[in-house]
C-alpha cells in the first residue's frame, strides 16, 4: 500500500474541514436589539456600582477593625474611608476606560486587553 497514489485520509479530512469552514460565511454580528443592549448596560452598571461600593465598604471596615485593635477610634476609620473612596474611583475609572484591572497606571505591554467583551460597547 503506497502513500503516494492513495490520497491520505487525513489530508482529505483537512481539506473538507477547510471547505466547510469557508462555506460558513462569517456571520455579521446580528444586532441583538434593545434587549441585548439593556442586558449589557445593566451588567456594566451593576459592575461599576459594585466596584465603587465594595471598595468603600471594605476600606472602612478595615479601618474600623484597625481602630478596634489599636484603640485609635475614630481616626483610622476616617482616613481609610477616604482612601476607600479613592480606590473605588480608581477602580471605576479603570473598569470604564478599559485599562483592565491592572494596578498601576501603566498600560500592560503588548496586546490590548480583551477583557470587557461581556459588557462593553453598551
Amino acid at each position, binding site marked *: 500500500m503506497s502513500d503516494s497514489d492513495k490520497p491520505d485520509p487525513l489530508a482529505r479530512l483537512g481539506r473538507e474541514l477547510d471547505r466547510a469552514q469557508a462555506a460558513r460565511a462569517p456571520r455579521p454580528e446580528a444586532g441583538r436589539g434593545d434587549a441585548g443592549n439593556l442586558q449589557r448596560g445593566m451588567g456594566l452598571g451593576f459592575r461599576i456600582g459594585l466596584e465603587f461600593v465594595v471598595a468603600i465598604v471594605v476600606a472602612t471596615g478595615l479601618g474600623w477593625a484597625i481602630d478596634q485593635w489599636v484603640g485609635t477610634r475614630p481616626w483610622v476609620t476616617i482616613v481609610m474611608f477616604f*482612601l476607600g473612596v*479613592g*480606590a473605588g474611583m480608581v477602580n471605576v475609572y479603570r473598569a470604564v476606560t478599559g485599562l483592565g484591572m491592572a494596578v498601576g497606571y501603566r498600560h*500592560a505591554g503588548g496586546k490590548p486587553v*480583551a477583557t470587557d467583551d461581556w459588557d462593553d460597547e453598551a
Partner: protein
Amino acid sequence: MAIELNPLEQFKIERIVPLHIGKLDVSYTNSALLMTIVVVLITALVLLGTRRASLVPGRLQSMVEMTYEFVADMIDSNVGREARDYVPFVFTLFTFILLANLLGLVPYSFTVTSHIIVTFALAAVVFIGVTIIGIARHGFHFLSFFVPHGVPLPLLVVLVPIEVLSYFIRPFTLSIRLFANMLAGHTMLAILGGFAASIGLLAIFPLAINTAMFALELLVAVLQAYVFAILTCLYLRDAIHLH
C-alpha cells in the same frame, strides 16, 4: 394546602450527616453534597470524554475538548502563551463554577455559589495564589506593582495606599459579583414562583415571566463563570507581566 412562600428558604443549609470534631462543626451538608456532585460530574465527563480519544471526536469528546480549548484560548489571549502552566487551574475553576451555577438551576437542588463563603473561598484561593506567583516570579520587585510610574514623591504618599487598597479589594469584588448575581437571580425566581402559586388561574402570567427569567438565569450562570475565569486570567497577567 400550605404553600412555602419564603423565597429565601432555598438557601438554607441543612446537615445531612452531622459531624463534629471538637467544637468544629464539619457536618456533611446539602451544600457539600452539591459540591461533591459537581466534582464527580466534571471528573466523570472529562474522563469519559478522553477515554477513547479519536481523531474525529464524538459528542462527549468534542464537548470536553471545546471547553478545554476555550479556557486555553482565554489564557493565551489574556495572559500569553507562557502562562499555559495555569490552564488546569483556570479550567478547574471555570468548570466548577459553571456546573455549580447550572446545577443550582435544577429544581429542588441547591445553589452552592449563592453563598458568599463559597465564592469568597474561591476568590481567596485565586488572590493568594496569584500573589504567590507574582512574588515567586519577581521577588521584591513585585512591590513596584504598587508604585505608579512618573508620579512626584508627595503624591506617592496618597497613591500607594490607594493602589494597595485596590489590590486587596480584588477578592471581595470577585466573590461578591458571583454571589450577588446568583442570590438575586434565584430569589427573584422564587418570588415569582411563589406569586404564581398563590393566585390561582391568573398564575399563567407570572409563570410566563418566570420562564423568561429562567432563560436569563441560564445566561447569567454561564456568564458569571466566564467572568470569574477571565478576571482570574487578568490577575494572573498582572502577576506575571507586572506591567
